[in-house]
């Protein structure tokens, strides 16, 4: 039993090579990127919901009627268009700033 336990431990930490028991930085970086992407998507959704609720829902009824749903759907698309326009414009501005430095 003890030797079995010892050998398991040994295989985790004792085996030389480049990996050994260390964490893989490449894997960490990929996981972090995924988490960042998720956080950005959540942020986008949160703000989109806020804006489209304000634009499309007047006095809250007992359910979302067809007009409201149609409005929300269009609003979502327009919000994405706006986000992309802002992203492009900001990127252009940054490049212009760098070119002037």
């Amino acid at each position: 039993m003890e030797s079995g336990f010892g050998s398991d431990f040994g295989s985790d930490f004792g085996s030389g090579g480049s990996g050994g028991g260390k964490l893989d930085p490449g894997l960490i970086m990929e996981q972090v990127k995924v988490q960042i992407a998720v956080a950005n998507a959540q942020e986008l959704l949160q703000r989109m919901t806020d804006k489209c609720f304000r634009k499309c829902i007047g006095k809250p009824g007992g359910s979302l009627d067809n007009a409201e749903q149609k409005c929300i759907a269009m609003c979502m698309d327009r919000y994405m268009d706006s986000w992309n326009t802002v992203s492009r414009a900001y990127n252009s501005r940054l490049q212009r700033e760098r070119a002037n430095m």
Partner: protein
Amino acid sequence: RSRGGGAGRVMDAPSAAGLGGADPQLQRFIEVETQKQRFQQLVHQMTELCWEKCMDKPGPKLDSRAETCFVNCVERFIDTSQFILNRLEQTQKSKSAFSESLSD
């Protein structure tokens, strides 16, 4: 000390070193991702602000007038940010010169 100019100032080197530890690859990764996040955050913020100024009723597409408004909005926002930083710098300079002449 801080790299990159314009609207995005990356973390100072000392704090980046703290997070990445001794690994230069991780350090570089953190710097790059931080820069990217600053960009993303500003896009979120400006989209929200400019939506209020440029969007009336959401239609079937983004018309050219609204699109122009968004572009102008971004430019003026950055201008505003730079204006504020510059003026603050100026008033700080004149303030410190003033307080130096006062202290004795």
